[in-house]
């Protein structure tokens, strides 16, 4: 189950509003390669994982992505506070604003609402891990594109942190992949007995 700790994983303190930037950063909240998708992907895949290590990794990275979701939501909230209508129009924030005001809503930068179609949970332990490797790269690229869109150090610091986390997650999924491959190849002995359904693969 989940416990909430009342603090951020990485501090978010953005002194300058920038609704145009909020409109872009929201894509890591509810967009195709964002943290909500990542979190649901890994937490859903957990159930059909086969090795204790890969179950742990899916569980723990899925959980960390929720913390990242909170950071992104916080960034969008702080970037879009206290705006007047002229600022809103000038920033191209008006189409988001009429549907959500200055609230936070899971959608992509283009305004497409979040959908489970953004991720897969295939029930096949190898396929799922390959999906996850790709997902972490997509997220890394997205953070790089977002970082190109601003010079504000208050925004760049959390983005830089989040980008590096994607690289670390990729490494962990890669290690999980090796463990699952060994398990399925039966090259090692594992403490966990192989379930009947996995024999004779």
């Amino acid at each position, binding site marked *: 189950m989940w416990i909430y700790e009342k603090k951020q994983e990485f501090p978010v303190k953005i002194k300058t509003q920038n609704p145009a930037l909020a409109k872009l950063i929201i894509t890591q909240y509810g967009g195709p390669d964002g943290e909500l998708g990542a979190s649901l992907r890994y937490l859903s895949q957990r159930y059909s994982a086969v090795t204790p290590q890969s179950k742990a990794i899916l569980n723990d990275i899925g959980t960390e992505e929720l913390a990242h979701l909170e950071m992104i939501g916080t960034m969008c909230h702080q970037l879009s506070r206290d705006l007047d209508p002229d600022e809103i129009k000038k920033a191209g924030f008006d189409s988001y604003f009429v549907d959500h005001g200055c609230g936070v809503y899971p959608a992509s930068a283009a305004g497409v609402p979040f959908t489970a179609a953004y991720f897969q949970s295939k029930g096949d332990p190898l396929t799922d891990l390959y999906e996850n490797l790709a997902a972490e790269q997509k997220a890394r690229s997205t953070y790089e594109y977002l970082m190109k869109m601003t010079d504000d150090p208050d925004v760049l610091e959390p983005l830089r942190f989040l980008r*590096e986390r994607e690289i670390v997650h990729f490494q962990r999924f890669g290690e999980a992949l090796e463990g699952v491959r060994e398990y399925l190849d039966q090259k090692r002995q594992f403490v966990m007995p192989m379930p009947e359904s996995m024999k004779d693969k």
Partner: protein
Amino acid sequence: MADCTPFDKTITVTKLAQAYVPIQKLCTLMEPTQALLAGTVFPELVDIYK
């Protein structure tokens, strides 16, 4: 710790049509506050952008 390499430069490939990621080995850890700023406590995983 002098000769610690954080990963093996050769990978044992057991079959085709698979992707292989080298396994990390623990060597050194970053200073704590630097680790938070960098986004990881493992210096070999740091990839600086720009």
